[in-house]
């Protein structure tokens, strides 16, 4: 029987995962806080099913992404995500790499919730097999989707850069 202490300790070590998912799926600080709480609760509820045969991080990604995708709240006006809302890094705004990163980040924010999940795991260097375990479609399908996503990102990044 898993204890609350055990769960809290594990989650504390892996809380960055939840933050990454919250940052990817929510734009405002308040929404990120709400999602963080929801993911924590859902992970605690599901912790009894964690067998330890998978890595805790993979298991947590699965719970966090499931929660973010199905997060249910009262309809709000859609907030348009612009490059201005991307958290600032230390270097100046004229740095081309920085601008590229901002544009790519904004392009990722425009993706569908499913595509965001795949990109998130891809950024974490998960293999197609591992991504397929989390998403629930075959590694081949993941490869097809990933190719398509890369194309979309390339196109969107150019558009975002053109508007800067």
């Amino acid at each position, binding site marked *: 029987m898993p204890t609350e202490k055990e769960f809290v300790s594990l989650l504390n070590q892996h809380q960055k995962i939840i933050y990454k998912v919250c940052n990817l799926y929510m734009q405002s600080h308040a929404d990120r806080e709400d999602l963080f709480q929801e993911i924590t609760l859902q992970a605690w509820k599901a912790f009894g099913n964690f067998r330890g045969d998978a890595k805790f991080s993979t298991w947590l990604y699965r719970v966090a992404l499931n929660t973010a995708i199905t997060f249910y709240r009262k309809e709000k006006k859609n907030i348009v995500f612009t490059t201005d809302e991307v958290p600032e890094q230390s270097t100046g705004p004229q740095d081309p790499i920085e601008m590229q990163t901002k544009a790519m980040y904004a392009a990722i924010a425009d993706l569908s919730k499913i595509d965001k*999940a795949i990109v998130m795991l891809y950024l974490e260097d998960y293999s197609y097999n591992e991504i397929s375990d989390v998403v*629930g479609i075959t590694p081949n399908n993941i490869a097809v989707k990933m190719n398509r996503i890369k194309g979309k990102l390339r196109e969107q990044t150019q558009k975002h850069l053109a508007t800067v």
Partner: protein
Amino acid sequence: MELDELKIKLKQQLETDHHQRTEADIAALLKKKAHSVLSKIKRSLWFEIIFSVAFTALLIYVAVASKYQSLRIYSSSFSVIMLLITGVLFFLLKKINLAGSSNLPIRENLQNIVVLMDEFIRRYFQFCIVLLPVCIIFSASLQVHEKETIVEIDAIFQKIRPQQSYKLLVILLYVVGSFAGLYYLTKWYLKKLYGNFVAQLKEYIRELEETKKEDAAYSGH
């Protein structure tokens, strides 16, 4: 630049705006209320179960205490129906508890939620639509066969107008109006509450299935 070339930068970007929480902060979060759609449905089901039990108790009381035979039959019959409804609500609650685990693969989890929500919406709609005509027809037939005069009901009709044809028209308008009102109100309410959300989840499933079909077609060539 491509996604692969910006991997590290993007990972850093995602990790910003991150303030470390302590174990005490995390433990405090576990005491709060969940807002997932299944948690909301569960709360809604519990509310309906409590309401059904309370209403059944009231019906049983009327069935025992009323001096009118029609009311006694009506109340006792409906207390049985309410018990059946409570049973179905418990069954739905059990299904949600069993299937609503968020550590499944994304596709399977979405499919589970959609199946459960579709069933919940269907059952809710069925109950609302079936109960009203059953209630009206049942109560009207019992009223016709009632030996004693129910003073309260008669008083209502006396106030409207004493003519028989007018009474029938009022009843008919009441039945049609209530039925149409309930039908559209329930549809609107369910769509507003869950309909758009279910449609969105179905769209995600379709998005996942789409690649599967394309991949199968591509492999076949």
